């Protein structure tokens, strides 16, 4: 049996076990997805994101600096602290034309049926092209997270399979996909030593730096059908 056929079979099988929460903290920690579902009126009345046809004509993707790219969802006791750190900013979705609505309604089911998917997730303005199972080394240490936390990445600019790509302008509607990442821990790098010299001075100065990086693992990439946006 070929590998892609096997993978398709595995995808078709219904998910039997619920996604386990992080196991090292408390014995029972249900995932709270309810605080995520606070749809603003601006979200609910707008239809969908533009498809690949209109994305070429749309504006260059701009990165809103204040966009909160992710929501920590696995810690109900500290969810208020997480919300204070990462306030939920509703997505601004541009109204789409009839043409893009029809192409999304026709082509998104085809994209879903192809086995492997990728997406360009944005975390604090930086794009990461990931598939399920990839590991991301963020260029910073993310405050307020501990190993085992599950984050939902809700900003993505592209979403695709082998033959189809859905482009956002600048971002895809967050109801069309679910991408989750597990915090694995914090890694660091060897100490960097930069030697600073000044002219006509006999002394050299050593500047030492050592940065810390948060490691994420993409645990889930799921694509919803066009019904999720009411098409």
């Amino acid at each position, binding site marked *: 049996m070929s590998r892609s056929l096997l993978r398709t079979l595995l995808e078709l099988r219904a998910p039997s076990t619920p996604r386990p929460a992080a196991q090292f903290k408390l014995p029972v920690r249900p995932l709270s997805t309810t605080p995520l579902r606070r749809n603003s009126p601006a979200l609910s009345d707008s239809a969908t994101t533009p498809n690949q046809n209109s994305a070429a004509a749309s504006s260059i993707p701009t990165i809103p600096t204040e966009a909160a790219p992710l929501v920590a969802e696995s810690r109900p006791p500290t969810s208020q602290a997480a919300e204070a750190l990462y306030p939920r900013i509703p997505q601004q979705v541009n109204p789409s034309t009839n043409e893009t609505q029809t192409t999304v309604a026709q082509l998104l089911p085809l994209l879903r049926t192809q086995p492997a998917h990728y997406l360009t997730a944005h975390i604090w303005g930086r794009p990461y092209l990931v598939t399920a199972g*990839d590991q*991301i080394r963020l260029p910073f240490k993310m405050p307020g997270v501990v190993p085992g936390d599950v984050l939902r990445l809700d900003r993505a600019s592209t979403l695709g399979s082998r033959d189809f790509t859905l482009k956002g302008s600048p971002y895809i509607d967050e109801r069309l996909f679910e991408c989750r990442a597990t915090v694995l821990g914090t890694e660091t790098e060897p100490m960097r030593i930069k030697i600073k010299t000044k002219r006509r001075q006999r002394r050299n100065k050593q500047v030492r730096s050592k940065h810390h990086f948060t490691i994420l693992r993409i645990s889930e990439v799921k694509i919803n059908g066009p019904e999720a946006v009411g098409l």
Partner: protein
Amino acid sequence: MTIRALEKVSVGQNGIGAFILQCKRLDIHYCDHSGSSRGMNAFIKTHLSKFAQTHPAIEFAVSPRPRKHPVMIGHYINGRQKAICVANMEPSQILKKAELLRDASGDKVKRVNKPVTSINESVRGVWSPYHGNGMAV
């Protein structure tokens, strides 16, 4: 007939399905008399019980080490160790070092230039000039 090994179906990756904390044991050494252990003794009295309660996956071993500096040693699943000397530190600083040992993976630290590491095949495949509609010049 030769014996053939079973082909590996999948590779285990932490965080997909289950998450397992990489730090499995934390050795905490102190000295009763030395001044450099003053902060460590206060840490053991005030912070350690709460820190150990919130991390049931880690085994905490507290033992004296007379006439020596206080040390914390993290033991990891991959068999490696990471030791930090916490002489003359405040309890809050020692708590940060304990969190550092908890968050570490145990691997040797190395510089990584690429942000994404993947073992999956490329989703879209390799581009070929001999297929498709060609490119208008």
